[in-house]
């Protein structure tokens, strides 16, 4: 058993392999993981919207031991990751980190927001620092406006930036 604690380091090895096979293969994998994740979050978004997202990430914050602030108002949800446990483990690793490890996060959640009619603005800030800011808007124009303040805007399958 690869412990659930070490999934991220296994994930990192998978990313390195897929990157060597081509960008389209990595994107296809993000979509496969996105489909897998639907069972955990899709119904919450479809039935409760931003409140459902807050419920999901509140649970994740606890189970994944995240140092993260969650803020929701009627227009958007904001997740401010102060210390990301996923990238932290990949960096504290006896194997080489994949340079674009952070891309997977928008890679799986972006397609789910596309499917549910929400608008994602994902600021990775710096791929070598375990921190990021994710904002999800109801309104496309507000999301577009928020993109202006982003340091490193992340895309996802079907949504290049």
């Amino acid at each position, binding site marked *: *058993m*690869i*412990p*659930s*604690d*070490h*999934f*991220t*380091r*296994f*994930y990192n*090895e*998978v990313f390195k*392999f897929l990157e060597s*096979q081509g960008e389209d*293969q990595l994107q*296809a*994998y993000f979509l*496969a*993981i996105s*489909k*897998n*994740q639907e*069972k*955990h979050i899709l119904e919450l978004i479809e039935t409760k919207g931003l409140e459902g997202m807050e419920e999901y990430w509140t649970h*994740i914050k*606890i*189970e*994944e*031991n995240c140092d993260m602030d969650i803020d929701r108002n009627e227009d958007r949800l904001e997740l401010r990751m102060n210390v990301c446990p996923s990238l932290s483990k990949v960096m504290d*690793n*006896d*194997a*080489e980190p994949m340079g674009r490890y952070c891309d997977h996060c928008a890679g799986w959640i972006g397609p789910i927001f596309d499917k549910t009619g929400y608008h994602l603005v994902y600021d990775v800030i710096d791929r070598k620092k375990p921190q990021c800011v994710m904002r999800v808007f109801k309104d496309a124009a507000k999301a577009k406006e928020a993109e202006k303040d982003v340091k490193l805007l992340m895309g996802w399958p079907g949504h290049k930036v």
Partner: protein
Amino acid sequence: MSEHLRYAEGGEVHLDFHGATNTTIDFIISRYGVEAMDAIFKKVGKDVYRSIHDDLVAGDTGQLVRHWRHFFSRENCDYDIEVGADEIVLTVRHCTAWHHVAKLVGTPSRHFCDQTTRTNEALAEGSPYAIDTEITGPGACRQVIRRRA
């Protein structure tokens, strides 16, 4: 024998990661074949768990046994470990990972337990030991460390 435990973790556990592992195994095998998946597990055994691999190569099984105890306890598995003169046997009666995936998707990938078998083989590669993994039932196995003949 060292008391080192390089990969210890604390806090909560997120068992849904096992579901993503299951999805990953099926994805890689369907596109690239089982050899590609085995090659990734080999990197997990030799690179990700380099400290345990290096200890085994140096003839020290202590860290692997502590690693097993730490993580099988963290994931609340039903297991025991017998350390004998000639072999060390980990008996897993209820693997939390396998059963969690079964709860999520019905039937785990038929290659789900390759993560254990292949990673064990890679951990032991080039060492005086072999680690054999026998799947004894759904979510159950026996993992044995023995000196190579």
